[in-house]
């Protein structure tokens, strides 16, 4: 079974600084999809960024980017120019293929310090 690991239960970053959240996963598949979700205190899960495993280019969405290392099975999230609104739980998720359910990591709680 696939597993997703986030080794940092909590992280903090100064406003305007950059922070990187770690995610590793275990799979024997070659084609799969990876996601980062944000869950603020409101509980509403929001997609931050996603990556297809067959694409070598790292995905980028404004201040959010990933470092996808397929051989290492690593999928870290970098948040640049951190803002107070970035404070939330961040979940890394894996999906094997069409029609399959998502597997989530345990989450990293990010605090942004003014």
């Amino acid at each position, binding site marked *: 079974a696939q597993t997703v690991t986030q080794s940092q239960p909590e992280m903090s970053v100064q406003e305007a600084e950059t922070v990187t959240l770690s995610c590793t996963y275990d799979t024997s598949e070659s084609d799969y999809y990876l996601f980062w979700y944000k869950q603020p205190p*409101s*509980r509403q*899960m929001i997609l931050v960024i*996603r990556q297809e495993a067959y694409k070598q280019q790292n995905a980028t969405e404004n201040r959010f980017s990933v470092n996808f290392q397929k051989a290492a099975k690593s999928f870290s999230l970098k948040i640049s120019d951190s803002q107070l609104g970035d404070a939330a739980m961040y979940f890394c998720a894996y*999906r094997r293929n069409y029609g399959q*359910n*998502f597997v989530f990591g*345990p*989450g990293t709680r990010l605090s942004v310090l003014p």
Partner: protein
Amino acid sequence: GAGVSQSPSNKVTEKGKDVELRCDPISGHTALYWYRQSLGQGLEFLIYFQGNSAPDKSGLPSDRFSAERTGGSVSTLTIQRTQQEDSAVYLCASSPLRTVIETQYFGPGTRLLVL
């Protein structure tokens, strides 16, 4: 347009009672997921509906848990004879599944407290 909605927002029940949690997915979304999130924890997959296919029930923790999706739209998660360890936030998500990379759209969740 309207997002995924869940009701009730909060539910307090006594141990041993049955509860029903409702999820209204985004119109036209063929896939629907239920997850459980215990306090400070990640998401635990419960069940997954996709179109007219048989649901993937592999995540249901016990036979006290069941879910149905009527008419390919609204879904109800039922927990029978609730236990204190069932206390958690239950999240529903839907997806159009137009492409494999298609994401899920989450509802705000139902917070269940079993006394």
